[in-house]
């Protein structure tokens, strides 16, 4: 099998790469733009990776920003960790921010990254000057651990399946395939993104080994899950944000989306913040329409 390569219109590899030691977990950090330009942080979502910003990041950098982003632990080129948690992701983010600048910088975060950053900013408001949250705002969608009697069986299945996965995690490896195979698999989770883009993502988010391509994402990680977290807690954090805020929301549900609607989000928009709803667009707003979203973001940052 050959080591295929792909290009994609507007996609540009980062200008710089470095690794940050976050409590002995290596975090892969990428940058576009001049080091002397003001910093803006881009934060990816769950099961994603920093190089998904390969189009969006350069658009921001070319407008005069030093764009800094990173792979969360277990994602992309960051180390696999023994354990993963929300708080650990936030600590890793603080390590990257501290390694970059001592002053408050804007944060543009997608999906789970948006919710992570809302918690980080609530705890460490001196770190962020503005926030753009791209479809990472709390939804009223009920979590599977809601203790209604009719959900007990669903919950039991979810926990049992999660525990079974933990048993197999030590020896789990991702299924290999051709570049085209991996793109087709991802298309099931990203049905609105073009195959050309997904094939490009394989070349930067997967490793090519003797038996084919494998996504870099830690195979011990599992999509979804359960736990005591309640979406309304994230809503309270959003309302408490003390910095200028722009929320971006699509209107088309996708498998990796949170199903948030404007009516869910609007009551919790922080004082002075605003919500932009983009019609006929899915969860990956900045990938589906990078030109429009980068313009919205740059206007907001200016």
């Amino acid at each position, binding site marked *: 099998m050959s080591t295929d390569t792909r290009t994609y219109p507007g996609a540009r590899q980062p200008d710089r790469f470095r690794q940050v030691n976050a409590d002995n977990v290596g975090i892969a950090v990428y940058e576009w733009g001049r080091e002397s330009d003001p910093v803006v942080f881009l934060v990816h979502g769950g099961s994603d990776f920093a190089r998904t910003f390969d189009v969006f990041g350069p658009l921001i950098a070319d407008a005069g920003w030093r764009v800094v982003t990173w792979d969360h632990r277990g994602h992309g080129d960051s180390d696999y960790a023994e354990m993963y948690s929300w708080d650990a992701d936030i600590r890793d983010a603080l390590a990257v921010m501290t390694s970059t600048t001592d002053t408050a910088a804007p944060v543009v975060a997608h999906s789970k990254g948006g919710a992570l950053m809302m918690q980080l900013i609530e705890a460490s408001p001196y770190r962020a000057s503005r926030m753009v949250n791209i479809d990472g705002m709390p939804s009223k969608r009920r979590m599977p651990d809601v203790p209604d009697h009719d959900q007990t069986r669903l919950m039991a299945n979810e926990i049992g399946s999660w525990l079974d996965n*933990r048993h197999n995690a030590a020896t789990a490896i991702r299924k290999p395939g051709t570049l085209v195979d991996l793109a087709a698999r991802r298309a099931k989770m990203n049905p609105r993104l073009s195959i050309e883009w997904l094939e490009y993502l394989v070349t930067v988010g997967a490793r090519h080994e003797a038996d084919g391509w494998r996504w870099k994402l830690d195979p011990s990680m599992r999509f979804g899950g359960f736990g*005591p977290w309640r979406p309304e807690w994230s809503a309270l954090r959003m309302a408490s944000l003390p910095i200028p805020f722009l929320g971006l929301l699509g209107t088309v549900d996708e498998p990796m989306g949170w199903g948030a609607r404007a009516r869910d989000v609007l009551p919790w928009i922080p004082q002075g913040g605003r919500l932009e709803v983009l019609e006929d667009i899915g969860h990956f707003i900045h990938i589906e329409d990078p030109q429009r979203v980068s313009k919205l973001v740059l206007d907001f940052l200016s």
Partner: protein
Amino acid sequence: MSTAIQTISLQHNRITLALHQLQDGAGRPLLLLHGLGESAVNIASLPLSWAGPIWALDFTGHGDSTVPRGGGYSAEILMADVDVALRYLGEATVLGRGLGGYVAFLIAGARPSLVRGAVIVDGPGLSGGSIHATSSSEISVAGPRVGQAPDPWALIELSRDARPPNYAVTFTHLAVATSGLDDPIAVTCKVSPPWIDAIKAEAGVMTDITMQDALDIYAAI
């Protein structure tokens, strides 16, 4: 652990868990779960009587088990530690002190066919963290003891993990619905944080009972 008859190493993802046998015997095993910041050594001294084999598990980051890099603890991960131990032991009665009591309770709901009674005893880490949204705090370093057991990240994260009462009630329902036991959970502790208050009001939870009486009831099943 010097007082153990034998110690078994079990693999939970990238963590190697130490499971110590404290007592030999025939019949169903009793699995002991220590409190936050403790280890099997501490809970081995609990004064109790059990005819069958007794085992004690060192949770991730505690005792002789692996101390991971960079934290990321949750009570649910420790529940998965116990699930790994149960896969080795088979059906067992589980007794937990403090944090171990909460984990014993969780696994009773998660694996109701394997847990023949969960006994909750007072000890470190019983209450846990918030039951609702609280202000977030910046904690970016765990101090100079990082890498040593008990893992400082475990002490920080597992004393702050959220335990909403309705989440706990869900696990009670799971244990009652599938275990086949009338009372799969026994609350013997004096301390009663909100999650325990909530489950004490549920069917299938024994209250006003001593640790030994609860063990005797489960031993007879």
